[in-house]
């Protein structure tokens, strides 16, 4: 077991990221549910809710969508989409893991080939998406 941990300790980081994102999503959901509960109280009393409270509903939806990189946020079309930097980053990662594969770094050359292939695929996906997909407004 200790040997297994020594070999795969780094898995703690990506899996920890998944857990943290899940927890953050859950917290976002709870905040939004509380906001809706408060709105319901206003609605049942026949009162007009504050404008800031109403804005909080859509703001949290956007924050959640941006966190997971899905959906269309209100501001996403206003910001330039930095696909070029993502292409460069994944290209460099791909090159690094390719080098690790060919030099059989840590004696794990085969595993690095899979990672290099994945990084290359993500790089190409960003490139295609950046060129043919949604473009930032000029």
């Amino acid at each position: 077991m200790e040997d297994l941990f020594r070999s795969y300790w780094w898995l703690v980081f990506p899996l920890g990221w998944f857990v943290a994102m899940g927890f953050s999503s859950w917290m976002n959901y709870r905040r939004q549910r509380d906001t809706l509960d408060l709105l319901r109280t206003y609605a049942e009393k026949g009162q007009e809710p504050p404008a800031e409270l109403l804005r909080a509903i859509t703001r949290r939806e956007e924050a959640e969508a941006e966190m997971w990189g899905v959906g269309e946020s209100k501001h996403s079309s206003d910001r330039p989409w930095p696909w070029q930097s993502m292409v460069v980053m994944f290209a460099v990662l791909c090159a690094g893991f390719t080098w690790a594969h060919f030099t059989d770094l840590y004696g794990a050359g085969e595993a690095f080939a899979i990672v290099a292939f994945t990084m290359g695929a993500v790089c190409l996906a960003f490139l295609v998406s950046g060129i043919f997909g949604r473009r930032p407004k000029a």
Partner: protein
Amino acid sequence: MEEIFRDFWWLLFPLAFLVAGGFNAWLAERRRSDALRLLAAYAAQGKEPPAELLRSLEATRAEPVKG
């Protein structure tokens, strides 16, 4: 068991994405039902629901209807 893990550790990633996708879908469903309950409260009062509420419902919709 340890041997299986060593051979298939990479499966953790696609599985984690599947779990995350399922978890997000579940949260989106709960959001929709919460928003719909609030809409029902507005409807019961005979009042017009706020535009932000309708927008949030649209944002959590699985497949946007165009046109």
